[in-house]
């Protein structure tokens, strides 16, 4: 290769000339290595002293990190996760005593549940034969399987409590009031979805606890007015155990394999998708409705009607 490329300047001469030229070229290359390599190495070390200036860093973080108000704002705005938040908020809104942080905790728990849930799905088969065994398998075989299941379960319970407290706080601070009426409704739907998520997950270990909890729960559906075979007017509308709303929920007249599968799919795909959609709306509306409601300045009785008009 070298022989062919290196003779661009001269014409195809004798072998001796070619050899000399090659020798000269190689010498030059060696010389360049001797002088350039230390210089470039030094340059490289210098560059690494400030990692924030590297191309890799700047490609990830779009702005500087120093404590200027601009950068603080950009830190939030340019981050896909953090830009749920505005750049600046009411100074008292950071007070925990006001917000209780329950909305955030709920969301955080939802994330934990998603991660642990996905991992659990690796080991779980929603069939009558496998389900219970898989849970035993998780408990005894899977590395960290037991803590994984425990975290999933307790995070779910914690999430329900957090959701209730969130609603409680929102009500107590009157945060549902104009212009946030709609977002309150979205919140109510999310509350229902949270309960349904937990409820559908209850059946999955296929043990006595889950089985009977779900049996008790779904037995009420029998009595749905009009749509349940034991509900008011159900019989008149031709409802039987095999075509009523409970049958639809369970995929059968008893809690069995189909119910397990339905539960599983609602729990892992159906409800989470719906919930994520509503959560997106919920968060979006928080921003669009003017951030969190407070802490707002107190209003006086006398001002109430004034403002209304």
């Amino acid at each position, binding site marked *: 290769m070298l022989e062919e490329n290196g003779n661009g300047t001269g014409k195809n001469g004798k072998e001796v000339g070619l050899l000399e030229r090659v020798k000269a070229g190689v010498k030059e290359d060696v010389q360049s290595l001797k002088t350039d390599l230390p210089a470039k190495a030094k340059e490289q070390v210098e560059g690494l002293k400030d990692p924030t200036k590297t191309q890799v860093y700047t490609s990830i973080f779009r702005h500087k990190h120093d404590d200027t108000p601009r950068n603080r704002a950009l830190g939030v705005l340019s981050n896909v996760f953090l830009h749920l*938040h505005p750049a600046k908020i009411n100074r*008292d809104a950071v007070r925990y005593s006001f917000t209780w942080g329950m909305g955030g905790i709920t969301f*955080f728990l939802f994330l934990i549940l998603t991660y642990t849930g996905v991992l659990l799905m690796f080991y779980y088969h929603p069939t009558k034969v496998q389900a219970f065994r898989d849970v035993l398998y998780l408990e005894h075989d899977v590395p960290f399987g037991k803590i994984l299941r425990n975290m999933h379960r307790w995070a779910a319970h914690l999430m329900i409590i957090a959701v209730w407290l969130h609603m409680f706080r929102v009500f107590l601070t009157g945060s549902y009031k104009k212009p946030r009426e709609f977002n309150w409704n979205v919140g109510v739907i999310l509350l229902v979805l949270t309960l349904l998520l937990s409820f559908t997950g209850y059946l999955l270990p296929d043990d006595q606890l889950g089985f009977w909890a779900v049996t008790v729960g779904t037995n009420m559906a029998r009595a749905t007015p009009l749509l349940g075979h034991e509900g008011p007017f159900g019989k008149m509308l031709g409802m039987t155990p095999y075509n009523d709303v409970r049958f639809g929920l369970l995929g059968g007249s008893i*809690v069995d394999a189909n119910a397990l599968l339905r539960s599983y799919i609602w729990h892992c795909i159906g409800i989470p998708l719906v919930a994520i959609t509503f959560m997106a709306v919920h968060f979006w509306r928080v921003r669009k409705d003017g951030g969190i409601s407070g802490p707002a300045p107190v209003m006086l009785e006398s001002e109430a009607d004034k403002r209304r008009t």
Partner: protein
Amino acid sequence: MDWRQLWEIVSAPDNVPIVGMIPLLVFYIYLAWKQARANDELVAELETNPALAKTHHRKSWPFRPGWQKEVHVWPFLLRIEFLAAIIVTIILMVWSITLSAPLEEPSNPNLTMNPAKAPWYFLGLQEMLVYFDPWIAGVVMPTLIIIGLMVIPYIDTNPLGSGYYTWKQRKFAIGTFLFGFIVLWVAMIIIGTFIRGPGWQWFWPGQTWDHNRLIYEVNRDLPDLFGITSNLAKGIFGAIVVGGFYLIGGFVVHALFRRYNPKDYRRMSLLQYSIMIFFLLTMVALPAKMLLRLALNIKYVWITPWFNV
């Protein structure tokens, strides 16, 4: 006092969240109450001092001119959020390590659990089954609860108390909500978890859950009390009683509401007002029915061939 029984109930893994929720609720109510009182005092002061009202920053927290009215989310909010996330993680992990999620016997449709309980967050509904037929307790009630929650922003016309804790400005709204949430929901859950034993019988805390306990209880229907025997008459009688409850109750509510909450009364449209009265009365109907049942052993008020109330 059967401490062992008590401990068995309290330490059941799935009951631990409820046990945890009670102090949590107390703490947050205290937190809300503290701020509400501070705000109410501030309002009272400002009401008497219009001059101050004009200049005051109108929050119970201290404020000094020159302080930022708004702060950056990064870092002032995020650092709290992040801290909260860490603390939740710690709590969750410790909980998961120390307490295992329950896993009982494999499901067995032939062996009924006694008591067979729904997941704890639905125990309020299960408790209602004692007082109402499943179609009310399991279907109508939950639906009404959801709808009721959703209509709150639309019937609460009080512009005060938006974005801050207060009691004096929203006595009626907060009172009603506390009644609904604490008494009708949380208390019912606690009853369902800790009080209801085998056969869904009432066991005081510390009383042994005796599976063989038998209780003699004869429940009558309200029409029987008045010696009404014919079905038609029963239906008509029940309709009158129920209708009467809503009519007379509505009138009483109107009389009280108009008197003690004239501002809201004035602000509300006819639709808002009637919806509010309907939900309020329905809410009151629950404890009323409980009272009838527990005190007078009355099972049904309204008996028709299709449904019973």
